[in-house]
């Protein structure tokens, strides 16, 4: 169950091999009562590595293969054994994501398709199954890792931005449907230095996965629906969104 401080005992993590997932699970386990975690993702090796790192902080951690590019029915099927192993579900962490190379994507529709599958449709399909599960259970929380990118479209990464926007909007709708019995928390960080963003030009201000993890846990405790990291990202985005488009497309965002 979620405790009186809004923190879970059992969590299901999609994109469990990611740096952000590892950091958030670790924060929930170290400062909260989290003790049983199912990690799901496409690569067994990344999952095992994260599970090994988290082992010291958890009672039990198991890994399950899940490919969000797969057909709808196989995504639903892949969730079942994880749910059964958990025995109860307090928290869902949606941390799956891919950062496509926009220059390649500009000319390769397959990259476009895959980005939407991993960032948009796949998560939406999985969240639909899990939201139903939580709704029947009558309690719990959904944590969806979005991005400030979901709120602004940039010339040099519009595929990523658009696919994240799809997930972000979908999660907002879920929040309208599920709250207040189920907490829905949409995390919108600025650039985070992780393996996903490795090799990309790093902006002047960036975050560590641990910073995002701390902000996420504080935000869900505060019952915040949208968690901007850092909080100043919110007015910054608001400012950008009122600028004329012909100016925005030239900004070095």
């Amino acid at each position, binding site marked *: 169950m979620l405790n*009186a401080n809004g*923190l879970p005992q059992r969590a299901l993590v999609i994109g469990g091999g990611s740096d952000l997932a590892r950091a958030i699970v670790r924060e929930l386990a*170290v400062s909260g009562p989290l003790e049983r975690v199912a990690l799901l993702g496409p690569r067994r090796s990344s999952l095992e590595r994260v599970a090994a790192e988290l082992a010291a902080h958890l009672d039990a951690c198991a890994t399950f293969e899940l490919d969000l590019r797969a057909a709808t029915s196989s995504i639903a099927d892949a969730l079942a054994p994880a749910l059964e192993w958990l025995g109860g579900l307090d928290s869902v962490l949606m941390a799956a994501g891919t950062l496509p190379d926009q220059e390649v994507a500009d000319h390769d529709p397959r990259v476009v398709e895959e980005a939407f599958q991993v960032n948009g449709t796949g998560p939406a399909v999985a969240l639909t199954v899990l939201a139903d599960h939580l709704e029947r259970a009558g*309690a719990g929380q959904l944590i969806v890792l979005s991005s400030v990118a979901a709120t602004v479209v940039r010339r040099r990464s519009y595929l990523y931005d658009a696919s994240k926007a799809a997930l972000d909007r979908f999660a907002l709708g879920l929040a309208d449907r599920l709250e207040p019995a189920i907490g829905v928390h949409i995390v919108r960080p600025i650039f985070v230095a992780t393996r996903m963003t490795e090799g990309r030009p790093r902006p002047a201000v960036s975050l560590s996965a641990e910073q995002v993890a701390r902000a996420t*846990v504080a935000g869900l405790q505060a*019952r915040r629906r949208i968690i901007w990291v850092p909080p100043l990202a919110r007015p910054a985005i608001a400012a950008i969104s009122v600028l004329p488009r012909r100016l925005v497309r030239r900004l070095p965002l």
Partner: protein
Amino acid sequence: MADHDGYRILEGWGRTPRSRALVRPVATADAVVDALRSPGPRPRLPRGLGRSYGDAALAAGGLVLDTTRLDGPIELEHATGVVRVDAGTSLARLGREVLRHGWFLPVTPGTKHVTVAGAIAADVHGKNHHRDGSIGQWLRRLWLATTAGVIELTPDDAALWATVGGMGLTGVIVRAEIQLIPVETRFVVDREVATRSLEETLEVLQEDATVRYAVAWIDATATGRHLGRGLVSFADHAPRDLLPATLARDPLELPNERVVPTPPDIVPTGVLSRATIRAFNTLWYERGRRRPASALVDLRTYFYPLDRVAGWNRLYGPRGFIQYQVVVPEAATHVLRSVLTSLAEGGHPSFLSVLKRFGAPSRGIMSFPRPWWTLALDLPARRPGLEALLARLDHEVLDNGGRIYLAKDGRLRPRVFRAMYPEHEEFQRERARLGALGLLASDLSRRLELD
């Protein structure tokens, strides 16, 4: 917040956590048995007036039986003060009705807005625990609804002692027979002593042997040499001949209560901030120090000061609050000090803090009270760092032979709970015998992995 289909969002008095369940009112014992036997969502759980602080009266996804309509006529034996009362009757109504005939509740918690069944299920204690024990001690008979029907229990039955303090997990209490205590008036004589440190507060509190009620309010925001300063109150029911002529005419009739209306549900998170909590505690302490040492106080004012503000729990804003109540053995006063210091220094000031000495252990298998010191603190919930700090304090309490009160709890962890309450195994056996396992459960029992 009722959905079209009878589902409702339920919260405890601390307003966190919350969950959604199907809520069905039950007005008779037969209706309770039928509801327990009926098909439909599980688990099942009785709920009274919802004054437990955490998740004891929540059953996410299940069927919650609202027992507050189980409140038929109160049967009082005028000569002996034995009362038979339906389980959904509030202590407010019971106390008012029996007072007219010169009787009063043998044990009462800090609010009168609890049901008789809720009081028994939590085995509540009052300011007189050091000499009168908890409510279970005054129980003569209990009627418990199970899937097998309504069974009558006496203090010779193990099932009664599983139900006393059993948090509603053994069956649904539908009726109880309780021994009341005689009183001559609706007043208590309250004597207050201001103390300057924790040592002094503990020392003064020990002088409780000759009074019925003894409790200390603590200024939990005071630190350093003032840590644990407070106001110790000693009180007894006022005899009739002590009343001035103006009050002696109708000494057993409670006047209508004036209640400050519920604050709107838009109180922002910051109203009870570190600064306002500190200011309130300092003011209260200084005011208390200047009050006359002894006074005649109305029962309601004395026992239920917070009932004057309906819905005062909303003052904590949307994040709610946690009541952290521990009991530790006589020698473990360093744990009290550690709890007060850690929370004050960690930036988690307690708005309202109470310290008291418990008497002999209560008899319920899962009853909370046992010797010696009990400390209760109200903390704004869901603040960064609070959970980790309380988890550390849980261990300190456990390592020193103490434990946490389940009626207040919304966050204790399964392993720590099992060590604090080794009696849980016996409790589970009684639940199995009563057919309650697999049927009755709460968010609390599932969080603690009893279910």
